[in-house]
């Protein structure tokens, strides 16, 4: 198994926040979703991987080589989309091309032009006059125009309408039809990932709570609903992030624990969103 990214024991300390023990690997040819509630440490982790932050400790390997972020010529192979554009706001799409193309070994003007056309982006319009959706599409166009094989996106879909989000997910799906391409996609809008992600890394309060196949994560947990009177103390401990209300409760449970619970409870498959919500709730009650 080849990995485009290997993060080992990454740690970054801030004054009142830190990410620690961050370890995960992105296998080549697949889409990894990086999920977690806002403030969990997704952007910090991604910036650390890209060398935008100085890390306290840990090791990062890109394409099998030790890297300190984007040193050397890693920029050719890595396409980046951050949640805010990092281009001069008075630049238009043509200015952006003029600015960045000298730094890439294989900048493809035709690809860039056809992507701009596909997204209906006016080359002469200044960046600051573009809508949020257009800005994201412009960043994606740049990321896809220099023969990158690894796309790293940090919250690209926040602020986008469902149509735009669908278009972006479609683009990413298309990207990995080539098995040499890989994607790392951080988001708190997990419905996007539920369908197309192969792997999931889940971060909560600065630590990795799960990293592995998406299918395994979703099969390992289920939703359980019922009345608190139906369960005993022992069974109560099996509930994760339980939400109680006047007419019952709902909680996440390990699928393997379902046989330990009474048949009266309703159990059903769980969504990624729900996993995040319940894990987050459980995490808060632990404090």
């Amino acid at each position, binding site marked *: 198994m080849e990995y485009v990214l290997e993060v080992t024991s990454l740690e970054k300390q801030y004054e009142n926040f830190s990410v620690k023990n961050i370890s995960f690997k992105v296998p080549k040819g697949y889409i990894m979703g990086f999920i977690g509630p806002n403030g969990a440490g997704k952007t910090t982790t991604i910036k650390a991987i890209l060398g935008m932050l100085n890390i306290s400790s840990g090791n990062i390997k890109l394409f099998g080589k030790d890297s300190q972020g984007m040193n050397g010529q890693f920029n050719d192979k890595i396409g980046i989309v951050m949640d805010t554009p990092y281009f001069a706001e008075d630049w238009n799409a043509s200015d952006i091309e003029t600015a960045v193309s000298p730094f890439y070994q294989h900048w493809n003007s035709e690809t860039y032009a056809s992507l701009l056309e596909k997204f209906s982006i006016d080359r002469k319009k200044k960046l600051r006059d573009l809508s949020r959706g257009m800005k994201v599409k412009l960043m994606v166009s740049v990321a896809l125009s220099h023969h990158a094989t690894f796309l790293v996106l940090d919250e690209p879909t926040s602020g986008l309408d469902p149509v735009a989000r669908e278009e972006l997910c479609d683009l990413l799906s298309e990207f*990995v039809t080539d098995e040499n391409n890989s994607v790392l996609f951080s988001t708190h809008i997990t419905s996007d990932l539920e369908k197309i992600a192969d792997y999931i890394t889940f971060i909560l309060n600065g630590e990795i709570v799960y990293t592995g196949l998406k299918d395994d994560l979703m099969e390992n947990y289920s939703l359980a609903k019922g009345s608190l009177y139906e369960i005993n103390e022992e069974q109560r401990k099996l509930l994760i992030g339980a939400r109680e209300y006047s007419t019952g409760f709902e909680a996440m449970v390990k699928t393997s624990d379902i046989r330990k619970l009474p048949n009266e409870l309703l159990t059903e498959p769980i969504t990624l969103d729900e996993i995040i919500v319940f894990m987050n709730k459980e995490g808060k009650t632990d404090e």
Partner: protein
Amino acid sequence: MKIIVSNRSELPIYEQIKSQIKEAIFSGNLAEGELLPSIRQLARDLKISVITTTRAYNDLEEEGFITSVQGKGSYVLPQNKEMARENTLRKIELSLNDAIGTAKAGGITKEEVIRMLNLLYREGE
């Protein structure tokens, strides 16, 4: 060949794909030696993950329905006529059990059901 998957089904997506491909093979819609869509292209078309389609194809290969050739893709293997027949019988059994359950619940007698069966067969000819 048509494959459609439902996100809201109780059945995992890879199972849905498997059963639809098997159906197509049994019914003859997928011929022996026919090339299936590539794992990645299928994932893209159905808007699902590559791991999911890989799992479906891997299972089908293990169960002897298809074979994969490096660099070319996956092909339908010649099928055991016995297995196809058994599969059909299994499906009929399921449908009949369903009908019997409905009949019993609605107070319809076995004789009435058999009469209906004969009528339907004759109509089909």
